[in-house]
């Protein structure tokens, strides 16, 4: 592929939903780690960059789940029929 000879329908190969699912899955792993029964001995240390990376993943996952839930809640059954009738224009075409 070159700039003067673009491939058509590149967006159809996009795995964007897969990225979002992967992040949401990682966020759930973070929650599982936090709920782990084993507690470390001694006083807990201050949170450092490693813990903040985990928190960042959890936050992104929460935002993705919020996005999915609000989309489900707002879903209008006529939207699906409309989408089938007139597919939306995708980026990267």
């Amino acid at each position, binding site marked *: 592929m070159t700039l003067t000879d673009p491939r058509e329908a590149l967006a159809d190969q996009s795995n964007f939903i897969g990225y979002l699912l992967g992040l949401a899955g990682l966020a759930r792993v973070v929650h599982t780690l*936090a709920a782990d029964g084993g507690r470390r001995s001694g006083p807990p240390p201050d949170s450092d960059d490693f813990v*903040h990376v985990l928190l*960042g993943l959890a936050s992104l996952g929460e935002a993705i789940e919020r996005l999915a839930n609000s989309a489900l809640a707002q879903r209008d059954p006529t939207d699906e029929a409309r989408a089938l009738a007139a597919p939306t224009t995708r980026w990267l075409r």
Partner: protein
Amino acid sequence: MSPEALIGMLAELERIRELTLDLIERETPRLLPAPLDDACGAERTVFDLLLGARRAVLGNPAAARGLHDLLVTEGRRYANTADGARLRDALVASEAVENLRRVWETVSLNVLDGPAAPNTVPDAWADLLADAVIGHGLDDSILARLRPEGFA
């Protein structure tokens, strides 16, 4: 120079970067350990996953550091919320997180920590590769005798 030529040059630079990294990996077998011969399916999968993570970090230090900083910033923001603070306290107290931290430090060799100018490779990455390449094949017990006290 036309935009097409500039993009071609970027693609070529990327190819040279990949080849240089391949060369460094070959010169530093300690950074690329061979898998165990008797590793079973699950062990081999985990080994490949960890090695892939190490390659991703060592091969793309500036991008990895950028992603790391982005997640840390978001994590700090989340920790300021009530839900985030609760999760932070649970993570800090968790033994599983401590185990995961050991795994991560072993895989990444801590190259993403420490100082780094914006959009550049972290200093620790350059230090690690310099140590791994320059130190290869040197007998440190002999060098230690020649090194004046206080020198790194």
